[in-house]
């Protein structure tokens, strides 16, 4: 009762203050919008004079933070290689670390709060599409044309790169060079275990299952305990098992001219069935579902409790650890395995390596282009091999690593700074480079086999990249949680593949998936010729 009259002025005051601040905020926001406008315009307005000549040659760039910069080396922002770059490229680069596992969040925050670096580098082409759509990055054709010599030439020499850098409007939005090696996933097997149990290298999925069962039952490590979990996973497990059946989860396939999500092909059911079998037969770790970072899996492999590792070209750098626990371990790469659908190769990556986009608000694109040119010409070499005489010796003009441990600590992390490079990892090159370390040599031999395999077998990939269809992008994330859930549950239960696919179908329908499929089909029909 006492509050009625007296409080009105106070209330009013608060409200007034509130509106004032709101409008103030609106203004500042609007300003940000308009001030952002002129920069691309300015670039196109003044073709004659060099608008950037007077600007300091300083740019910022993102750098993946994988926690690999060791003690004494400094940090991702400042270390011997950032110094080297600043001293030799003629451009000062300020690096902004992006946690590798959280690049989506971190990039989104940086962009949303208008503090994104001038150059944003990612492996994920989806990001480039989204950033362009949000207006966070700008087309690069003009910059490449005007300010670049080396990269311009490189792009002409590698026209196959162009479709991956170009978006729907026909403009180039990212800079990238060719991948050093396009082979990606791989399965490693303990050759010493195969030999010990008198088993042959599997050539089909069925044979792999036989081998795995033998590992499980016949005590290949000879410790007298039935504790072998034959297969260890990594992020690559689902991918590899999908790929056997040419049905990579969430990929689009052209089935009789119609675009279809892998889940709704007959082949996907076989992939589901395999994973269920592996679980129920105890061929994989039964606790994989809670091993979200696959650290337990890695440990199974490095401690010699598993003999088959679903991994990637680099085997997650586990060979040294494995040898420390099992000095006698010898390894082999499992060749592509056949199924009733034929033999599909292991995943072959897109031709482009890291994609670098330019922030729409960047001050000095000319300096950025000069930096890219420098990196492509010569900068990438020390970032790959280290310093001559310290980390490598030249042998037949191939840099041979002299001290692998030293190289790993001092140079290993630097490859991340190579926004563009010209390293080509051919089998011969890898073997020569390896130097004296046995682990290093064995690893190079394994990689050579994998790369050779990737060249002899084809990998079925009907679309070169994820269709840049906004409707699909907006449901893909939600659907991913769904299919991962259904996949995991199915593997651990007695659900039949048909039931699981039915569940996937329902989830897809509830996201209005069919209309998305139609949109993707329309995009495909319109771009079919360009995709070849």
């Amino acid at each position, binding site marked *: 009762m006492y509050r009625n009259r007296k409080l009105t002025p106070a209330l009013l005051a608060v409200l007034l203050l509130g509106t004032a601040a709101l409008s103030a905020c609106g203004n500042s926001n609007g300003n940000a919008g308009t001030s952002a406008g002129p920069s691309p315009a300015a670039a196109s307005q003044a073709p004659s004079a060099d608008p950037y000549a007077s600007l300091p040659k300083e740019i910022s760039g993102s750098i993946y*933070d994988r*926690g690999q910069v060791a003690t004494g080396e400094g940090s991702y922002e400042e270390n011997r290689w950032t110094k080297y770059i600043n001293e030799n490229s003629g451009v000062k680069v300020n690096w902004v670390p992006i*946690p590798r*596992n959280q690049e989506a969040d*971190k990039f989104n925050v940086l962009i949303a709060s208008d503090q994104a670096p001038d150059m944003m580098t990612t492996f994920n082409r989806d990001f480039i599409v989204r950033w362009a759509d949000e207006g966070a990055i700008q087309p690069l054709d003009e910059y490449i044309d005007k300010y670049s010599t080396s990269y311009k030439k490189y792009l002409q020499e590698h026209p196959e790169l162009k479709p991956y850098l170009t978006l729907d409007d026909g403009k180039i939005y990212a800079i990238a060079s060719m991948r050093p090696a396009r082979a990606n996933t791989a399965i490693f097997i303990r050759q010493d275990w195969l030999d010990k149990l008198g088993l042959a290298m599997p050539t089909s999925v069925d044979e792999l299952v036989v081998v795995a069962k033998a590992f499980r039952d016949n005590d290949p490590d000879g410790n007298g305990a039935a504790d072998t979990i034959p297969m260890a996973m990594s992020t690559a497990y689902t991918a590899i098992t999908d790929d056997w059946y040419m049905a990579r989860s969430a990929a689009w396939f052209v089935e009789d001219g119609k675009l279809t999500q892998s889940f709704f092909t007959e082949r996907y059911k076989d992939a589901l069935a395999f994973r269920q079998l592996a679980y129920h037969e105890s061929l994989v770790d039964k606790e994989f579902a809670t091993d979200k970072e696959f650290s337990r899996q*890695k440990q199974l492999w490095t401690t010699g409790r598993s003999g088959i590792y679903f991994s990637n070209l680099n085997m997650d750098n586990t060979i040294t650890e494995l040898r420390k626990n099992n000095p006698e371990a010898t390894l082999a790469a499992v060749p592509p395995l056949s199924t009733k659908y034929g033999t599909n190769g292991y995943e072959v990556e897109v031709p482009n390596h890291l994609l670098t986009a330019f922030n729409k608000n960047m001050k000095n694109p000319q300096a950025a282009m000069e930096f890219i040119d420098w990196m492509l010409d010569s900068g990438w070499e020390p970032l790959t091999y280290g310093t001559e005489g310290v980390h490598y010796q030249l042998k037949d003009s191939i840099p041979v690593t002299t001290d692998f441990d030293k190289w*790993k*600590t001092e140079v290993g*992390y630097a490859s991340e700074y190579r926004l563009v490079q010209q390293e080509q990892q051919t089998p011969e090159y890898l073997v020569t480079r390896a130097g004296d370390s046995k682990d290093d040599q064995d690893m190079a031999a394994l990689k050579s086999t994998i790369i050779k395999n990737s060249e002899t077998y084809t990998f079925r990939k009907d679309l070169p990249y994820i269709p840049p269809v906004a409707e699909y992008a907006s449901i893909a994330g939600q659907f991913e949680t769904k299919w991962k859930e259904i996949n995991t549950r199915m593997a651990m239960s007695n659900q039949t593949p048909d039931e699981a696919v039915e569940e996937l179908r329902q989830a897809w329908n509830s996201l209005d998936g069919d209309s998305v499929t139609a949109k993707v089909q329309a995009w495909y029909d319109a771009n079919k010729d360009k995709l070849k």
Partner: protein
Amino acid sequence: MVNRLKSMPLYLFLALCAFITVFPILNILAMSLSSSRAIISGEVVLWPVEITVQAYKQLFIDGQLLIALKNTVIITAVGTVLQMIATTLAAYTLSKRRLKGRQIFTFMVMFSMLFGTGLIPLFLLVKQLHLINTFWAIWLPGLVSAYNLFVMKSFFEGLPAELEESATIDGATDLTVFFKLTLPLSKPILAAISLFYAVALWNTYSNALYFISKSQLLPVTVKLYQMLQTPIDSLLAGGDSSQYIQPEGLKAAAIIITVLPILCVYPFLQKHFIKGVLLGSVKG
């Protein structure tokens, strides 16, 4: 004597509760001090097996962890003081029923508790206030917790009113009443709430991840999270590799290192809120 016996089950029960609560942490502590062989074969329960401090040695080879720890200490110490000042002052004021506008202010606080700040406006605001890459980006966006404010306010409301009354009659201003009377009486709640804040700051994660991009300024939680996510290759590579430590052991050691400091501070605050400081002085 009879009383003692009767309360035995109570003591046993609480001792059991306490044991169950700390067991997992003791388990981690034991792992951090055990050899990798023992960890993998699952032999470590409560007591370290094949004791070694290798994991700790390796962790500290990485100077980054020490820097991160230092950052976290600064963030926690300064942040707690700032938050306590803002919260205590406001809670005290809002506990005074005679204050005009009290209900509006209180409702505002409550309202703010429900509406989480939108991501975009928060990012833009932090940027416009030039807080990016400073600790202020951690302190300011969480300056006052509505929850703590309400808890404190309800404590102040519970203080005997006669106290203030008699002081006011003696001509004391609000300032005097607050600093000379209320604060000394409120040690338990002050200690409790500062711990609340300190723990939250100690474990601060998201804001640091989003607003701090300089690795020299990152707190230990972000560092720890990176360690837990990616196997600590850089650590494994560095230093002498004669004794190889499993990631699990390293993780355990990293966990212990991040928890230890706050455990050390805690007893100093704790003595304040264990005893009923309050009524003794009121009745005197």
